[in-house]
């Protein structure tokens, strides 16, 4: 009897002791929020024959492989760091055409054309980008304030950006409001097509090159004879001044050196103000409306895009050619609406409409529809379709169609970049998303808890076709997990 009583006491003591140990766990461990990680890979390929580098014709073959990683590191309460890094490696056939010619090209006059000896810009480029932000969350006020800074770097463009975003939830109305202000400053290394690059930049002015007269009066024009930039022609001034007679690009006086060569520098600044209000309609429907305002200033054309003119000349190397010239200011407005509806227990409908307008006379309509279907509780298949139609800018014309007289181009701007033209496009595809119902991932040595918990795996494919014949395929993969 005594032995039995002793055993019972021992058993009860053991249970109580373990129970006390559980209750003595530190408060921080109970409330610890996991680190969230998202890994994204995207492969994109396209082909077309309206390359803007070649003035509106030529291969647009391009492949791009992007890897991105996003991290959310919680700090306290609902606050935390947001870190995003990525690398984008792309190959573009059109970049080879930047230096298809070297030496000045004159229309109709004697020429000194040399076939290109290789592009200053490799057709194989890599862009690095990243950003860091911090969520200042206020649980009582249901708000999050996030300052962010970031960068992007590729061969000819270096960017820095900064932004502020504010998100607020109104629980009584069940409304979410998000607003964000971003500023991006790009520094462009200005690479002109090969036939425009005998020009060298000197302090305070631009050398006119062989036989040329200096533009700002302080450069030195060496040599004699009449070249493309020789005195008596207005081509140099036509190319390098805009409709308001301002030097184009702006004479920053700065240069940057790359591979032993000096290139002039110009800047682009983009200001964006984005807003979205999201609200619940009923237990199966919600919607959102958004407004984006964007102002861009500075170099908005692409320095190595050509524009050929309608001069009756059929030999490409003798045709009148200029560098793409676009206004140094652009204001964009887009209004968007979203509507989501859970039709049945397994099928939902997601839709989005966007209306766009800008100061370059581009108007556009974009509509997207998706139908996520839950095959199983953890697996969703989503077919989707997107339609886009835009009225192009009045500055656009195709290869060899621009008229060069001042009367024909009253604004003084011209481009053969078909991305800015009248186009329609269709995109169709499907996505798979797997969300593990139970904990799925890598466990610790004792197999008591997950040290890596997979939250979702996504795969997405899209086929894109544009009215001018451009076709593209893209595949994206995402892995989201918690640590």
């Amino acid at each position: 009897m005594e032995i039995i009583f002793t055993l019972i006491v021992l058993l009860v003591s053991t249970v109580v002791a373990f129970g006390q140990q559980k209750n003595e766990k530190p408060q921080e461990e109970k409330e610890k929020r996991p680190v969230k990680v998202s890994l994204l890979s995207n492969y994109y390929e396209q082909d077309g024959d309206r390359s803007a580098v070649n003035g509106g014709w030529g291969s647009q073959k391009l492949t791009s492989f992007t890897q991105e990683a996003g991290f959310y590191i919680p700090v306290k309460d609902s606050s935390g760091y947001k870190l995003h890094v990525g690398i984008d490696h792309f190959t573009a056939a059109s970049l080879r055409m930047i230096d298809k010619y070297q030496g000045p090209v004159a229309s109709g006059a004697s020429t000194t054309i040399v076939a290109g000896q290789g592009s200053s810009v490799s057709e194989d480029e890599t862009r690095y980008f990243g950003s860091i932000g911090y969520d200042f969350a206020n649980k009582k006020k249901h708000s999050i304030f996030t300052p962010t800074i970031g960068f992007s770097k590729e061969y000819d463009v270096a960017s820095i950006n900064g932004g502020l975003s504010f998100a607020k939830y109104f629980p009584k109305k069940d409304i979410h409001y998000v607003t964000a202000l971003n500023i991006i400053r790009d520094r462009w290394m200005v690479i002109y097509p090969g036939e425009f690059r005998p020009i060298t930049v000197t302090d305070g002015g631009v050398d006119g090159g062989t036989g040329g007269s200096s533009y700002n009066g302080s450069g030195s024009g060496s040599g004699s004879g009449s070249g493309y930039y020789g005195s008596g022609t207005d081509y140099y001034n036509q190319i390098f001044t805009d409709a308001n007679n301002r030097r184009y690009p702006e004479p920053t006086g700065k240069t940057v050196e790359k591979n032993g060569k000096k290139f002039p520098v110009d800047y682009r600044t983009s200001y964006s103000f984005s807003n979205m209000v999201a609200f619940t309609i009923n237990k199966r429907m919600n919607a959102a409306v958004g407004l984006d305002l964007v102002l861009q200033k500075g170099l908005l054309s692409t320095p190595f895009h050509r524009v050929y003119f309608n001069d009756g000349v059929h030999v490409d190397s003798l045709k009148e050619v200029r560098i793409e010239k676009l206004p140094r200011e652009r204001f964009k407005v887009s209004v968007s609406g979203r509507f989501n509806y859970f039709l049945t227990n397994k099928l939902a409908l997601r839709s989005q409409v966007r209306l766009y307008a800008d100061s370059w006379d581009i108007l556009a309509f974009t509509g997207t529809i998706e139908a996520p279907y839950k095959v199983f509780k953890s697996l969703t298949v989503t077919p989707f379709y997107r339609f886009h139609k835009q009225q192009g800018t009045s500055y656009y014309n195709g290869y060899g169609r621009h008229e060069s007289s001042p009367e024909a181009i009253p604004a003084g701007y011209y481009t053969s970049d078909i991305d800015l033209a009248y186009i329609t496009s269709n995109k169709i595809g499907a996505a798979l998303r797997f969300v593990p119902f139970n904990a799925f991932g890598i466990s610790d040595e004792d197999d008591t808890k997950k040290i890596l918990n997979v939250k979702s795996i996504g795969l997405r494919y899209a086929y894109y076709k544009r009215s001018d014949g451009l076709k593209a395929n893209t595949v994206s993969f995402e892995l989201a997990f918690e640590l």
Partner: protein
Amino acid sequence: MFRSKRCIVALLLLVTATSCESVKAYQRQYLKDDAMQQGASSIEKSENEAFSYREGASGGDFGKTGGGCGCN
């Protein structure tokens, strides 16, 4: 081109303005689903970025609006 689009927008506003009802926490199982997310997912944004370079329009879903790369 935009006449029918204005109708769609107006219809949307009408539906939403007259039909909002408060939803209790225990009735939110559909609203909490990923399919009802009010915004593009990160995988969707990544895909859309590539196509935004091929068109003159941008904006919506807090995606790319211009600048930050050697693009339009």
